[in-house]
C-alpha cells in the first residue's frame, strides 16, 4: 500500500472519529482519491445553517501537492466562483504544506466563508457586489444558502427584498443562466418550475456535475 493511500485512509478515519469538528468526509464511489467533504456554514454569517459540500480530488503526489477542492454546493462568496465552485485560497495553491490535511483544509474553507477577501476575488461580479453593497450581498448570500445549502433563509426581514424582484431577477439571484432556463422553458415547462428544478439539481450546464437533459426533464415531470 503506497504512502498516499495510507495517509488518505488515515485522514478519512480520523475525520470519522472526530465528532467535535462537524466536518465530514465521504467517498463518492470506490476510489479513496475522489471524496466529498462537507461542513456547516459558520455561525454569524449569511452561510449559517447551510451545509456546504466540497468536491475533493487527491492528486497523485499528495500530500506534497495541494489537494484539489471546489464547492459542489453553490456559494455566493467573492472567493468562490458562482459558476464552477472554484475556490481562491492560498493554501490550495502556493501556501500548501504537506502537513495540512483534508480536515484542516476544509476548516480553512469554513473560515474563508467567515472572512471574504474581495481584493483577491475568484468571482469578480460577486466581489463587486460585496464591495459596493454589503447588505445586498449578504441578502443574496443568505438566499443562496437557503435554496442551495438548505439554510433557514433571511431571519428578521422576511418577505422583503429578494422575493419581490420578479421572475427575471430570480434567474439571476438563483445564480442560474438565462439560456439554461430558456432552453427548458421552450420544451413547454413553466418558467418558475424550470427555475425550481434547476435549482434543486444545482444545475450549471450539462457538463458540470454530469446532469443530463433527461435528468432535468425527469425532475420537471415529477
Amino acid at each position, binding site marked *: 500500500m503506497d*504512502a498516499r493511500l*495510507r*495517509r488518505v485512509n*488515515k*485522514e478519512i478515519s*480520523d475525520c470519522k472519529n472526530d465528532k467535535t469538528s462537524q466536518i465530514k468526509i465521504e467517498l463518492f464511489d470506490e476510489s479513496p482519491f475522489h471524496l466529498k467533504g462537507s461542513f456547516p456554514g459558520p455561525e454569524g454569517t449569511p452561510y449559517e445553517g447551510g451545509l456546504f459540500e466540497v468536491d475533493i480530488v487527491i492528486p497523485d*503526489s499528495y*500530500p*506534497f*501537492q495541494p489537494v484539489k477542492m471546489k464547492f459542489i454546493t453553490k456559494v455566493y462568496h467573492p472567493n468562490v466562483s458562482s459558476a464552477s465552485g472554484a475556490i481562491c485560497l492560498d*493554501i490550495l495553491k502556493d*501556501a*500548501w*504544506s*504537506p*502537513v*495540512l*490535511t483534508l480536515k484542516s483544509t476544509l476548516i480553512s474553507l469554513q473560515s474563508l466563508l467567515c472572512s471574504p477577501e474581495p481584493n483577491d476575488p475568484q468571482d469578480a461580479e460577486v466581489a463587486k457586489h460585496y464591495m459596493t453593497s454589503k447588505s445586498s450581498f449578504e441578502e443574496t448570500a443568505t438566499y443562496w444558502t437557503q435554496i442551495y445549502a438548505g439554510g433557514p433563509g433571511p431571519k428578521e426581514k422576511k418577505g422583503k427584498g429578494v422575493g419581490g424582484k420578479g421572475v427575471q431577477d430570480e434567474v439571476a439571484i438563483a445564480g442560474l443562466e438565462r439560456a439554461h432556463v430558456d432552453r427548458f422553458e421552450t420544451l413547454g415547462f413553466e418558467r418558475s418550475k424550470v427555475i425550481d428544478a434547476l435549482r434543486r439539481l444545482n444545475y450549471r450546464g450539462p457538463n458540470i456535475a454530469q446532469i443530463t437533459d433527461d435528468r432535468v426533464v425527469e425532475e420537471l415531470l415529477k
Partner: protein
Amino acid sequence: MTQPVEEVYSLVLDADQLEQCTSMQQDEFGVLESIYPEFVSSRNLDGDALKLEIPVQFGTTKSVLISEPPPPSNTGIASLPEKKQTLQSISLTTLPPILINITLPRSYPLQKPPVITSIRATHIWLSEVEVLQSTLIELWQTAEPVLFNWIEYIRTGDFLEKLNLVSPGNSDIIALPHPAPRLIAPLLLEYDSSAQSSQFAQNSYPCSVCLTSLKGSKCLQLKCKHIFCRTCLEDFWKMCIAEGDISRVGCPDPECVKKANEAGEEEVARVVTEAELQRWKWLREKRNVERDPTVVHCPVAVCQAPVPKPIDADKETPGWSRLRTCPRCGYSFCAFCRRTWHGPLDKCPIAQYEHLALEYLGAEEGSPERAKLERRFGKANIIRLVATYEEEKANMQWLSSSTMQCPGCQCHVEKNMGCNHMTCWKCSQHFCYRCGERLNPDQPYAHFSNPKHGCFNQLFDVIDVPEAEWELEE
C-alpha cells in the same frame, strides 16, 4: 563506633525479615530494570553487588562554566603573582554518567543503607565525589528502598545544588571546578552530542506528513526544530528537486512554508541521493544568479554563463569597471554595451547602451529597479552613463533640429546666417540646407527657382521675413 551497634541490630533481624529484605531488593531491582534498563547493569553472581551508570540529563540547555579551582591561599607561594585563570564556557543538556558500585547488605532496606564500594564520574568531570557519596547515604531512610531516588537525584542534576555547583542567582548556570578546563570541555561536548543523538534515535516522534509515529532513527529534526520522518522528507524533496521547484525544498510545516524556510545543504545531503543533491545545488546556484543583480550573462550565444561582477570593480576607474571576463569561455566584454571589450577609454556606442539608460530613467528614484542596475554596474557608473546618454541625446536632437548633414561627407553643418545654398567646408559639396539635396555646383540656385520643387522661393528662410516686412513697412 557505629559498626558494632549495627552488628547488634542485624542480629535482631529474624529470618522472616531477612526474607522480606531479599524480596524488597528483588522488587526494587525489577523496577529499576524496567524504568532505567540502560542505567543498571545486572547484579553479579553473588546477587548483592550492583552497578549503576547514571548520566545527568537536565532536560534543558544549561551553560556550564568550567574553571580552575582557586589556589590554596595559605601556602608559601600565595605571594606570587596570581596565575591567570582559564575559563571554559559551554552549553550542555547532559553530563557524562556517574558510575556507582554498590553492594546491598542482606538487611537492606529494612535496617541498612546500600554500601557504596566505589563512586566516580566518567572523565572525572566531578571531583567532589566523596561529598556526593555521603549525600546519597543521607538520602536513605530506614526501611525505605533508596536506589530509585538515587538515580533520580543524580539524573535530574539535583545533586549539583547540594554540591554548591549551581549558580545561586540563575539555575541555568553551573559552575564546575576542574583542574584542566581545556581538556574536559571537549570531552563533555562530545558526550553531550552523542547522548543527544542516541536519545533522539531511541525516542518516537509523530510525523505529521505520513501521520505515523516513528523511531527517531528514522526521523530527522530540521534546524527549525520540526521533526519529520526521513521517507516523507525524501519523497517531498525529491519531487521538488525533480520539478525544479527548489524554493519548496524546506520544512513542510505550514508556518515554515509561509516563511519560505529553505533547507540547508547539510539537511538536503542527509535526505536525498548524491545526484539529487548536485541537481539541487545547481538549481539553487542558478536561482541565486538570477536573483543577483550584479551578475550579467556572457554575450557569447553558445556560452551565456553567468559572469559575476569582479569584487574590486567599484574601486576601479570608471573605464575599467566595465570590464567583465566570462569564467567559462574567457570572453572579455563591456558590461554596458555587451560588445567585445573596447578598452577603458572608448565610449560605448549610444545605440548599445540606450536601453540601459532608458531602463534607468524609466524607473523611479529609489525604486528596486534602479537599485538593481546600480548594484550591477555601480551607482556612479550608471549615473555617468545616464548623463552621457542625456547629453548625447540632446546633441542628437540639436543636430537633427539645428544642423544639416552634408550629403557628401555626412558631416553636420550648422548655418548661422546666409542663404540655404551651402557649400561643405570639408568636401566642397554643394547642397540645399533645407532638404539636404545635392546641388549642381554650376547652377546651384536652380533648385530654389523651380516652382515644382518644395524649396521653390526658399533660398532664404522665413526667419528673414520679419526683417523684410519691417523694411516694407518702412
